[in-house]
């Protein structure tokens, strides 16, 4: 039985023909290259290198960026790509989010002409993998107090410090690292092999197992002066990247939820208990109807946010709402889907428990669920409640 994407309100009819063609290409790729391999990749804890090559080959990395070999698609198309990838696995979507929104985007927006020409074409084609170093072991929701710092030393910068929870870190050819230079947060490009730089992989995850998560360690890491991103100072730099990645997540979560719904519906129709398919029982129908309801709302939220991103009429709070809501309902849908699958739901024969475990990470990364509530709280009241200080 093939995958049937739930689209109760036919929201995809609002897409352009090209956006629908891109959707079909990515959806077919997920069917052929992700679904048959994902469970094994999760067991082994690897991100398959063929995925990197094929994502690059499809030309979808850095989707909304224009020029320098980048695809130049709409933000809506970028969202659709994230949704289809995450229908396969949040780890695959994470790879694309980090590559496009967190590594390519800052070079594209804040980099020098030379930096753009040097890195972006290879990153768009998948030849070069990027990662993004902001979070530190002791500074997650509060990146402004980061301790990683850069110092000028003749014709070089010297970086010292450590980053943690860095998707793609160990496999990355370059890292966009945020560090304080004279107390001001700046972006630096660190290349694999730079003196004093290492990226050990973090092991033992119960979530995003087919995605590489790493530490980035800088011990008197020496990089040339032309590796600083000239175009931005302060937290605005990393936050602009996060806005784009969070936007993609709001679509991606819909894909994970659609996958869980598809599996739950088909399981409920075929699982016989007390002589009838369990789909014939009111309690199960109630769960399926609730899933359909929440997915439909999330789809409309993601689509309209895409329209706003494309027209430029958006504020970061719009993204906070969509990221928070859509991941929240996707996680709950994964849990309810697991429940409908009964004991079978814990097996990797079905995608639901993998999505559930993945979504626990997705709920926390790129601004935790609670932080997004605080962003909205500040928007509503004008009073920030992140810190205890005024």
């Amino acid at each position, binding site marked *: 039985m093939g995958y049937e994407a739930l689209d109760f309100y036919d929201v995809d009819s609002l897409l352009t*023909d090209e956006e629908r*063609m891109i959707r079909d290409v990515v959806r077919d790729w997920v069917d052929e290259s992700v679904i048959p391999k994902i469970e094994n990749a999760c067991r082994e804890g690897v991100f398959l290198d063929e995925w990197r090559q094929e994502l690059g080959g499809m*030309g*979808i990395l850095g989707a909304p960026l224009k020029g320098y070999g980048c695809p*130049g*698609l709409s933000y809506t198309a970028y969202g659709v790509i994230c949704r289809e990838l995450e229908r396969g696995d949040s780890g695959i979507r994470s790879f694309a989010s980090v590559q496009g929104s967190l590594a390519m985007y800052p070079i594209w927006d804040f980099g020098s002409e030379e930096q753009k020409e040097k890195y972006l074409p290879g990153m768009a084609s998948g030849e070069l993998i990027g990662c993004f170093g902001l979070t530190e072991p002791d500074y997650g929701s509060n990146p402004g107090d980061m301790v990683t710092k850069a110092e000028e030393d003749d014709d070089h910068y010297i970086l010292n410090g450590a980053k943690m929870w860095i998707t793609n870190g160990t496999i990355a050819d370059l890292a966009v690292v945020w560090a304080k230079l004279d107390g001001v947060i700046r972006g630096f490009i660190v290349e694999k092999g730079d003196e004093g730089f290492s990226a050990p992989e973090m092991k033992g995850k119960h979530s995003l197992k087919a995605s590489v998560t790493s530490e980035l360690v800088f011990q008197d890491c020496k990089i040339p002066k032309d590796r600083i991103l000239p175009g931005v100072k302060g937290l605005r730099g990393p936050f602009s990247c996060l806005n784009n990645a969070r936007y993609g997540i709001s679509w991606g979560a819909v894909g994970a939820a659609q996958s869980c719904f598809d599996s739950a519906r088909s399981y409920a129709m075929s699982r016989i208990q007390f002589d009838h398919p369990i789909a014939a029982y009111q309690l199960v129908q109630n769960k399926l109807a609730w899933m359909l309801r929440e997915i439909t709302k999330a789809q409309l939220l993601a689509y309209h946010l895409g329209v706003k991103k494309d027209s430029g009429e958006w504020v970061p709070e719009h993204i906070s709402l969509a990221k928070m809501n859509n991941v929240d309902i996707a996680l709950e849908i994964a849990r309810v889907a697991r429940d409908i699958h009964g004991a079978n739901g814990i097996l990797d024969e079905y995608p639901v428990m993998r999505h559930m475990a993945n979504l626990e990470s997705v709920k926390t990364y790129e601004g935790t669920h609670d932080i997004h509530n605080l962003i909205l709280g500040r928007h509503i009241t004008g009073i920030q409640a992140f810190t205890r200080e005024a």
Partner: protein
Amino acid sequence: MKVAVLIKQVPDTTARISIAGGSVDEGSISKWTISPYDEYALEAALKLQSESGAKVVAITLGPQRSSKSLIDAAAVGADELIHVLYEGTSGSLSLQGALAAAVRKSEADIVLAGKQAADTNSGSTAPGVAQMLGLPCVGLVSEVKAVDGNFVATRSTSSGMERVSVNGPCVFAFDKGDEELRRPNVRGIMMAKKKPIESLSPADLGVSMEDGGVNVESVGYPPEKPAGQTFQGAASASEVVTKLREEANVI
């Protein structure tokens, strides 16, 4: 060199088919796609494009919706697109006549097509078009290459692989090819949007759709499969083995 590929839009193999009034209810089909054997033909044409510099012209015949299959062909690299726009139904001779006229108009040197369409399964288009164009037809090929001014096709026969050389224009009908149709990339999809489709009616091509030749009278559902047989207990093993050997012919 110019290579014409005949492409038919058919219901996706996953689409549910319903029949109303002796014909397939097309309105109920949710997903259409390029017929799989035509995809092998298209992939072979695209290889001639990359290896021998051929121009690829994709030709389809059908209603407005079938232009999607031309856009799909453009997304993977077809250079020119011809749509013989015909909303009605007709017999195979008329359809072949219209396709042959479109091939003639395209000035293609060779024609690649699937050996049969996934919906009608008739297998008459490639040889029919060849006959109308006065060209030879090589059937059941899996590969066509341009070698020293000739076209060399590979076909599988009951005794092995056969290589066939053709020294002039020809129609090749594709069986399952060696490679699946390549996946389009985003750049191809965005370029496909800009590629013009030459839309022609049968009348534009000087073809009448009246004289159909072979017509499909009606279609129906296949007979229902008989219920399966159930065997229980170790004692039934010898009976199951006998049936598997003599009725199912699988052991």
